[in-house]
C-alpha cells in the first residue's frame, strides 16, 4: 500500500491504482471534514439557531406556513417563504398597505390589542424602560394547563429569535417554546406569574414580525380550526364544531388525542 510496505512496486499499475484509491479516500474524508468545519463555523458566528429555525420552517406543513396578511384578509391565500420573518420580507410593505377585513369574532380565546403575538404562541409586551416581557398566550395556556416542569433560561442568557426560549413538560411530553425576539434574559417568571421571561431586546428593536390587531384574531381562528380538526376522532369526516369555547387544561381533559401532533403544530416543530 505504501512504498515502505513489503510487496510495493514502483510500477504503473501500483501507482495508478493506489493513486485513484487514495484520491477517493481523500475526497470522502475532505467532504466529511468540510461539513464539520462549516457546522463549527455556523456555531461560532451564532448563525446556528437561525439556521435550525429556517430548516425547521421549511419542513412545516404548508397549512402551518400561512402569511400574516392572509389572516388579516389582505391576501386571499399566501404561504410565507421567509420563515415568518417579516422584518426582512420584501413583500411586507406591499401587503401591509392593503385594506384588511375584520375577523374579530369572539372565539372564546382572549387576546389583547396591547400585546404583540409570535406564531409560536407567545406574546411580547414592550415596556417603557426598553425591556420586554414574554408570556405564553391564552391558546397555549389552555391547551397545556399547569405544566409538570418548566425549564427557564438562566439570567443573561442570549435568546435568538425563533430559537428555544424555554422548555416545559406535560404528561411526559416535552414542549419547546420559541423565542419571539432576540435579547438578553433579565429575569424569569413562570406559570404562576403572568409572564415567563423579561428580556432586554437587541438594538435596534424591530417587532414587525410579531402579529397584532386583526391579524391575531384571524390567526387564532385558524389555530382553533386546526386544533378541532386534530382533535376530531380518527377516520371521521372533517367537521368543525359550531359554537363552544376552548376549555382550560385540554391535555388532561382529552388525554387520548394525538398530543405529539397538536403540540408540534402549536409550537412550530416540524
Amino acid at each position, binding site marked *: 500500500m505504501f512504498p515502505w510496505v513489503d510487496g510495493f512496486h514502483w510500477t504503473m499499475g501500483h501507482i495508478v491504482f*493506489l493513486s485513484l484509491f487514495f484520491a477517493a479516500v481523500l475526497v470522502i474524508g475532505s467532504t466529511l471534514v468540510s461539513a464539520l468545519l462549516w457546522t463549527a463555523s455556523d*456555531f461560532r458566528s451564532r448563525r446556528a439557531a437561525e439556521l435550525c429555525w429556517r430548516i425547521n420552517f421549511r419542513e412545516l406543513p404548508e397549512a402551518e406556513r400561512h402569511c400574516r396578511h392572509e389572516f388579516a384578509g389582505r391576501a386571499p391565500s399566501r404561504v410565507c417563504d421567509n420563515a415568518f420573518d417579516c422584518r426582512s420580507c420584501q413583500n411586507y410593505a406591499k401587503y401591509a398597505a392593503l385594506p384588511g377585513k375584520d375577523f374579530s369574532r369572539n372565539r372564546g380565546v382572549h387576546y389583547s390589542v396591547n400585546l404583540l403575538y409570535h406564531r409560536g404562541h407567545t406574546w411580547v409586551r414592550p415596556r417603557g424602560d426598553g425591556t420586554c416581557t414574554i408570556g405564553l398566550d391564552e391558546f397555549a395556556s389552555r391547551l397545556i394547563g399547569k405544566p409538570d416542569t418548566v425549564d427557564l433560561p438562566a439570567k443573561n442568557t442570549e435568546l435568538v429569535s425563533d430559537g428555544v426560549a424555554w422548555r416545559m413538560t406535560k404528561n411526559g411530553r416535552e414542549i419547546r417554546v420559541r423565542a419571539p425576539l432576540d435579547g438578553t434574559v433579565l429575569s424569569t417568571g413562570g406559570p404562576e406569574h403572568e409572564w415567563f421571561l423579561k428580556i432586554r431586546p437587541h438594538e435596534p428593536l424591530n417587532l414587525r414580525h410579531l402579529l397584532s390587531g386583526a391579524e391575531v384574531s384571524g390567526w387564532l381562528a385558524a389555530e382553533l380550526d386546526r386544533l378541532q380538526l386534530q382533535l376530531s376522532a380518527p377516520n371521521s369526516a372533517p367537521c368543525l364544531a359550531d359554537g363552544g369555547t376552548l376549555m382550560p387544561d385540554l391535555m388532561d381533559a382529552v388525554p387520548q388525542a394525538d398530543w405529539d*401532533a397538536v403540540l408540534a403544530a402549536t409550537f412550530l416543530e416540524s
Partner: protein
Amino acid sequence: MSDLLLIDRRWIARGAARSSTLRFALWLAPWIFLLLLGIYAAGLCLYYGLNQTNMDNRFAFGMWIFLDLAIIAMGAGAFFTGFLVYILKQKDLKPVLNSAVVVGLTCYSGAVAVLMVDVGQPLRAWFTFWYPNTHSMLTEVTFCISCYLLVLILEYIPVVLRNRQLRKVPSFLVFEHQFHKLVPVLAGVGTFLSFFHQGSLGGLYGVLRGRPFAYRAGFAIWPSTFFLFLLSAIAVGPSFLMLVTATAEKVTGRQLVQPGVYRKLGFISGVLLAVYVAAKAVDTLVWLNITSPSVGFGPRDFYSYWPLSSTFLFAAIVPLGLLPAILLIAPVTARKRGWLLCGATLACCGVLLNRFVFTIQTLALPTLAFDEFLSYIPSWQEVATFGAVIAYGVIVYSLSYRYLPLFEEGKGAGQHVSLG
C-alpha cells in the same frame, strides 16, 4: 407499557402514520429470530472454521459469493439513483433517494459481513489493503466496495439525523444541513467507485482462463463480463428499488411515492436492460463461436449437464431479459402497476440467475479430461447466514421506514383551514 408506547411515538416523524408499537414488534420478531439464527451459524463458521460449510477447494465460491454478487447488483440502485438525481438532475426521482440509500447500505454492509465470514480469517482481512495485488480484479473490488460502503454510511448519516428527536439537537441539525450540501460530491465518488467494482465483479470471472465457461475476450484489460455486470447492475438497481418500495407500500398499506416515479424507474431500468440483453446476446454468440472453441470447448461441453442446461441461457436472455425490458418500456404495460412490477421482478430474477450461473455453474463444470461434473448443496450454516443477511436488510429498512424520513410523507399533509 404506556410510557414505552409514548417513547416510540415520539421518535416517529410528525404527520407520518405508523402501525402500533405492538404490531411493529410482531412484524420484527420473525426477522430477529432469523437474524439471531444466522449470527449463531456465522459464529460457528468463525469459531470452527469453514468446515462448517459445504465449500471445498473446488467449490471455493458457494452460496455466499452468489449472495454477495446478487445483493451488490441489487444495491446498485443506490449509486445509480444518486447519479441520476445529483449528477443528471433528475429531481423527480428524489422521493426514492433516501430509500435507495438504505437499500444500498443494507445490501453492501450485508455483503461485507458475509465476506468477513467467507474469507475464513477475518482478522487478516486488512492484508488485502496493506499488501494489495494490483493485478487482481478482487483487489479492486475490495478497495472499491470498502470505500463505497463508507460513502453509503456517510450518505445514511443525514437521513438518521433527520429523525424527529435527533433533529432537536442543534449541532446535528446544522451538520445535517451542511453535509447535505456536499452529498452530490459523495454521489459522484459513489458513481466512480461503483462503476469499477460492479464491473470488476464480472471481470474477475471473465479473466479465468482456466474456466472456459466464464472466460471472455474483451477490451484492453477488461473482459466483456466487466461491462455486462456493470450494465446488468445499473439495469436491475432501479427495478429492485421499485420492488422494495412497492413491497413497503403493500406492507404498510400506504402510498409512498407517486406512480410517475415507478414509471420513470421502470423506463430507465427497461432501456438499460434492453441494452444489456443485446450486449449479452452478442457476447454469448462471440463466446460460443470464437472464444470457447479456441480453447477446445464447444456449447455441448457447457450445457449437457442436468439441471444446468441451455434452458438457463435461454431463460437469462429471453423470459428474464428481453420480456421484462419490453414490459418496462412499452407504454401499454408500463402504465399498469402490475405489469411494471412483474417486469421488475423478472429483471431481478434474470440478474440473480446470471450471478448464480457465473458463481455455481462455472465451478460445477469439468474443465480437465479427468474432471467430473460436481454438485454443491450449501450447509445449513450457509443457508442460515444467507437468511440472516435478508433478515438484517428487512430489519434495517423497517426501522428506517418507521423512524426516519425515507419518503416525503406528511409534507403539506396538514389540512388547509379556510378563514372566516
